[in-house]
């Protein structure tokens, strides 16, 4: 290829059409090589080594940061259904809640929430209400006559928010068979 000459005609024609065999432009070749190299790097980084952000991960991060921002705007307001739902969208806080759950709650409610000493928390029936704020209040004040500890005496409100967030995002509504339903069914 080194002795290649510009505009050299092939000794052939097709219906009068002749062809040169000119070199391909270097910038064009590098465009081709560059996109190929980029693709291998992209695949390695994003798919093999999982260092990129795929659409679903990006979405979860977007939801979490929007929830954190909204929560910050609600600073100073009372804890509400709405604020607890926002907490449940922030993975760090849900994770913290899940650790609290494992340490304190699973003895009575089991790891999957299907209930043994305490009621099944995955079905639609609630003794003290299944709305986020009702759950939060039940955890804080406990139900001493039934053996439910008043966790608010030993645990900070933010920790109780975390465990509530874990409950509503990961336990509630799973509809697992377990302890028989107790209390009132929740609306739609």
């Amino acid at each position, binding site marked *: 290829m080194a002795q290649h000459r510009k505009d050299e005609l092939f000794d052939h024609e097709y219906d009068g059409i002749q062809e040169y*065999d000119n070199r391909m432009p270097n910038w064009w070749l590098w465009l081709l090589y560059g996109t190929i190299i980029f693709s291998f790097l992209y695949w390695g980084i994003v798919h093999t080594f999982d260092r990129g952000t795929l659409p679903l991960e990006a979405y979860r991060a977007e939801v979490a940061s929007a929830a954190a921002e909204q929560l910050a705007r609600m600073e100073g307001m009372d804890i509400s259904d709405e604020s607890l739902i926002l907490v*449940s969208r922030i993975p760090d806080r849900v994770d913290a809640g899940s650790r609290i759950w494992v340490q304190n709650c699973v003895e009575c409610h089991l790891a999957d929430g299907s209930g043994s000493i305490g009621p099944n928390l995955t079905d639609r029936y609630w003794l003290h209400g299944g709305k986020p704020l009702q759950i939060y209040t039940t955890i804080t004040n406990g139900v001493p006559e039934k053996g439910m500890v008043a966790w608010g005496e030993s645990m900070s409100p933010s920790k109780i928010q975390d465990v509530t967030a874990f409950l509503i*995002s990961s336990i509630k509504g799973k509809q697992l068979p377990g302890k028989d339903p107790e209390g009132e069914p929740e609306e*739609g």
Partner: protein
Amino acid sequence: MTTDALKREIVYDDRIVRAFIVASVAFAVVAMSVGVLLAVQLVFWQANFSTSWMAFGRLRPLHTNAAIFAFVGNMMFAGIYYSTQRLIKARMGSDGLSWVHFWTWQLAIVGAAVSLPLGLTQAKEYAELIWPLDILIAVSWVAFSVNFFWALAKRNEKNLYVSLWFYIATIVTIPVLFIVNNLQLPTSFVHSYPIYAGVQDALVQWWYGHNAVGFFLTTPILGIMYYFIPKACGRPVYSYRLSVVHFWALIFLYIWAGPHHLLFTALPDWAQSTGMLFSLILLAPSWGGMLNGLLTLRGAWDKLKTDPVLKFFVVALTFYGMSTFEGPLLSIKSVNSLAHYTDWIIGHVHGGTLGWNGFMAAGMFYWLVPRLFGTKLWSTQLADAHFWTGTFGILLYVVAMWISGINQGLYWRALDAEGFLLYPDFVEWLVSARFLYLMRMIGGTVYLLGFLAMAFNLIMTARAGKPVVSADRVVVRTGFAGPSTWELIRGWPVVLSLLVVVGTVLFGIASPLTQGAVAGFLASLVVAAILAIGLGKDNWHRLLEGRPLAFTILTVVAILIGGLAELIPSVIIRHEVPLTPQAAEAKATTPDSSAALIASGTTDGAGNAGGTGTPGGAPGSVEKAAAHAVVSAFTQQPYSPLELTGRDIYVREGCFNCHTQMIRPMRHETLRYGEYSRAEEFIYDHPFQWGSRRIGPDLHRTGGKYPSLWHYIHMRDPRATSPGSTMPSYRFLTDAAVDFDAISRKMEALRRLGVPYSESDIRTAAQTARSQALLLATDLAEQEIEIKTESELLAVIAYLQRLGRGPQPTALESAAALEGGN
């Protein structure tokens, strides 16, 4: 060699070329006129004329099919029949086959023009034609291919010129795409269901849709470019080696890029990334064609001033370059997140079709017609006028759509200071786009006027001359020397290329530990390949050009690799629908809980997942969404008989032309439409209805969002509920009657495709449908709306109310039961 050979006169068949030109020009006028009507409808909804057959949703497929298959198709055949005969110095295989090809093709087009306005459709873009027409098209294509390869077999020119490579790629690839995407189970002579559902159907469709652009609108036109540009400017082709490299790269890579139509959808991530990356790599091979065309014109630029043919070719190549740059750009995920579903895509495809295909066609016709009629072009000034109006029209069109598209994307994603939608009402964008839609309408009309001027000019030219019989004295050959087909196929370039492909696939699936080693192996393979090419004395590719069979086999291999690599893994997930994490967990704990769930009636309330559009401010939506995820993931229930009927009407009316059913995982989408769409929700959707464009809002989570009365009013008079909407009125559905007794046959067909309808579901279909219709009619009657239970409108409402959630009551008793359960 030539001394002992016979010289004989070969007469070329140009009658068939003239016929295809007439068909192409006539159908182009039809396609563009329908296009202009559609553009008018988007500005003035009244132009839907309150009929069923003039509504946007039915006419848009007619526009696209006519533009692609009737206009460009016939133009392509004219160019191929003219150039092939001359490049191989032989007449086509058989005149009879040529005419079978011609007439079956025109018959299919007429069939399309009748069936699509009647609402007979498969509802897959550019594959809308019903199965009997599909068979007709297949027959036509077989006639074409046999004719073509027969001609190659009796060629008197040993080597195949680059145009013919592109024709071969077209001829072998189109049937593969067409057949795989049109595998349907008929339920009647005019209706069928695709064998694929949901994600698989989407992937197969866009593998087809993308490659219809690649192998119907690109490769044959590149072949035509390689013939007509050197002929028209009298200059040698710039670079043979560029032809070789960009041809093989283009056909191998194109096939992989289809998933870029499905970025951010429920398609698996690996397929999305594959689609994006192969689209990026496709940029250089695509530009190879543009470069070779433009550089061939070196030294002929002065002719541009006087020759309208070259003007059209240069602008066509420029638009080709622009569209093939825009394509990879739009495939980049972050760009796509803004542009997908918007008018930008509409601008992109019109730049390709009107700019590249339309101008290549015009240039070719202006060059061909005077030669086919032995005269000069009737008016060069008129051709110049066509050139300038056409260029102005297409630029106005494309620029309007770019602005409108970007505007649309920005409107949708705009959030206010508190992190919620700045424009929560979808129609706000539509109202803002009105001026740009008007510009598009004008641009399209001006382009059409230019085309009409061309048609007139060509007719006058033809009238001034008379049909010419063209012939050549050629050396007649029988058999050519050279290596055998098998020797060529197992040549080192093939072996090395296949090894590189295998290496690349291994790289893709390698674990983090082994990927480095695979990359090293792959790099050494590539170095070996480059060295081998450098050392190769006898050019393997030139030998290959002398063996059409070997060439064709390798072309098939090149186009099959990408298709198989993407489609096979996806067909496998058909049986292993991915579950959400919660669902997988729940399923592991309670393998048999699905039945219990349905029995307890939880799907009703829980199914109404976060569709209110304000999750942040709607307490309870999260729990509902979580419950919904669990329920829908493994208790996905088929549509009820009435919902299925409604869905078939939705398909018939072409609702997917303006409404998507695929909510992307982006916060602005979930705020607006509700929880993002997941793969498992579509497993019974034959065909998938994800759509590709939003002129109206996404409908995937419409179920339960509005009362049925809202739908009743909205379908009959969209502006009554959504002022500013351009949706056609579907008042005519009110009096159209559902054939209840036909439903069971459709359900039977779907059951054979894997939808779990039981014997009794099918037996009682008519009864169940009537009862569900009665339930809806009663609900409306309570609000003083009189509607007959057999009204198609009720079926559509039933379908819309089911979208994105679990089973709905089909009778009073089950309605009571479901309510009681709560």
